[in-house]
């Protein structure tokens, strides 16, 4: 088991290395990305500019700069921002992680529960109006731009209906750590959770329904029926169980992608200081050290999620083990 694991690890490192190089090159291809003038200030003389460039190592060839950034990021772990000079990058990312985790975990709970509910209800009532209605709603959920949903949610809960009994409890945007005030944490995240979950409820509900309907056509369900098991039991003990394999692997990938910064738009719209927003700000500021750190972090989660799901798949379904 050791060798494959190492191999997998090497593959992950390769992918992350590739990403880091791409990001690095993108950064240096951006006009105006040279931070020296921004660091130096608005009326710096060319001499001062040269001094700043030198002190930040920006006058060195790109490969050296790349190695230095990576060395500072992974080995000495003291990479600091170009914009907020002196700010260490790694603690900032670590600090943003719980925010993203809070957002994604809460949303995941909601979307898993509702996704299963939608899928099971639709499959159980397939062909009826309920099924169609749920599938339509699911598709609507999949079709909505998340930032727009967030904006409209803000409009309703923060402005238009904020003073009504319905939404007066909604706190201002922003994030409160759970350690500081769990109730406020919950209240301030519930709207973002729902916003983020809508897409996935639709997605998972639809996929689950399709799988369930497929499962119903399989022999073992017919056998179970023949044995006289109740429909509920067939649904939950048999059909759902097999259908969940896809569900779980989908979940793994989505969760990884979201924790890795995929919730960027939600974080931006709801003003949550998570990794996604950190990344977005870094990209906007062209703050190379931050960009490198957050992109490495993000791709790490995506790569790990990919690996875990592949392994889980191979484990659940040996047929795919060699198929690639």
């Amino acid at each position, binding site marked *: 088991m050791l060798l494959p694991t190492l191999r997998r690890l090497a593959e992950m490192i390769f992918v992350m290395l590739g990403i880091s190089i791409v990001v690095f090159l993108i950064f240096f291809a951006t006009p105006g990305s040279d931070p020296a003038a921004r660091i130096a200030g608005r009326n710096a003389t060319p001499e001062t500019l040269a001094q700043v460039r030198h002190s930040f190592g920006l006058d060195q060839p790109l490969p050296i700069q790349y190695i230095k950034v990576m060395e500072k990021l992974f080995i000495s772990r003291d990479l600091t921002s170009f914009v907020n000079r002196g700010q260490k990058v790694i603690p900032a990312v670590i600090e943003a992680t719980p925010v993203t985790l809070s957002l994604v975990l809460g949303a995941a709970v909601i979307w898993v529960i509702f996704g299963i509910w939608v899928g099971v209800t639709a499959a159980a009532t397939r062909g009826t109006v309920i099924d169609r209605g749920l599938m339509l709603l699911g598709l609507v959920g999949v079709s909505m731009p998340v930032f727009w949903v967030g904006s409209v949610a803000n409009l309703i809960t923060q402005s238009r209906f904020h003073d009504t009994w319905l939404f007066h409890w909604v706190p201002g945007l922003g994030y409160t750590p759970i350690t500081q005030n769990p109730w406020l944490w919950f209240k301030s995240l519930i709207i973002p959770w729902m916003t983020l979950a809508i897409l996935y409820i639709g997605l998972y509900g639809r996929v689950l329904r399709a799988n369930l309907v497929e499962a119903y056509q399989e022999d073992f369900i017919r056998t179970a029926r023949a044995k006289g098991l109740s429909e509920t039991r067939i649904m939950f003990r048999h059909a759902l169980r097999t259908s969940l394999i896809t569900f779980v692997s989908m979940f793994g990938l989505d969760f990884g992608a979201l924790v890795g910064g995929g919730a960027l738009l939600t974080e931006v719209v709801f003003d949550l200081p998570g990794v996604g927003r950190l990344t977005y700000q870094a990209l906007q500021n062209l703050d190379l050290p931050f960009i490198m750190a957050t992109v490495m972090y993000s791709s790490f989660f995506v790569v790990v999620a990919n690996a875990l799901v*592949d392994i889980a798949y191979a484990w659940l379904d040996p047929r795919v083990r060699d198929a690639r």
Partner: protein
Amino acid sequence: MSGRVPMLEAASVTKTFVVGSRFRSGGIQHVQALSDVSLKVFAGETLGLVGESGCGKSTLGRCLLRLYDLNGGRITFKGRDISGLGQRELRPLRADMQMVFQDPYASLNPRRRVGDLIAEPLRVHGRRRESEVQDRLRELMDLVNLSPEFLTRFPHEFSGGQRQRIGIARAIALAPSLIVADEPVSALDVSVQAQIVNLFMDLQDKLGLTYVFIAHDLSVVRQIATRTAVMYLGGIVELGETDRVLHRPAHPYTAALISAVPEPDPQGNIRARTILRGEPPSPTNPPPGCRFHTRCPIAQERCRVEVPLLRPLEDAHSVACHFPLDGPNLPNGAAPGHA
């Protein structure tokens, strides 16, 4: 018979597959699908090839036609060494050696019309005149007992047996002299199987074909094959006249295979069956010595160490066993005693 020049000769053919990926769990593994296989196929005969699934018989069939590259050994077709030829050089030879596939569903591209599928070899091999192609198509449909109007239809509109007829029509389109039939009936219903086997025999009569007929079902081989080779784990363990092999098997594995067929003996009792112990060993990690020794009811110490070579017995019959069986129906009921 042995004095004749074989149409096709395989000498010490070895084939190894690389499985898995450097980047996947498990990594790369080498599977020895064929090890040191030698056989001859003579013009006009039907050589049956039997064995459990995974024993390498399909692989052998494909290697014989050079659909696979070899890792070792030599294949001579009509006196020409074809083992080193590239796919491009092999192309002209394809007209003379064809294959019928096991799965009539998978071997016909579902997106193409039957006529197009059967005409493909004609077109590829240079018969470009459309009328000529159409005539040949009708002729072929007639040969395999299908209505020519089917030519404009798609494979999914046909039953398994019909599809296999289409596959056969395609294989004989270029009038080859050799056809490797890779379990052509095993995917079909029993009633259809007989029809297809009959078709094969008819065609052999009409067109003077030579067959390598692969099957895991002994009864089919018994029906069609003049000679039979039995394979186990990538090697031939027994080879000889079909009657001789099936009635007086010399290899304990052959004996076990035969006894696995539920066939009433002359007394009307269902024969006691030799049950093979366990699963066939993994070809990635074959056992040393005689490959069959792990399941052999009569294995001895020598079998674990020394690889038995295929050696001739009487009547052009050969076997790869240190302790070949003797006499008719020998292992009946005896072998399980060792279990």
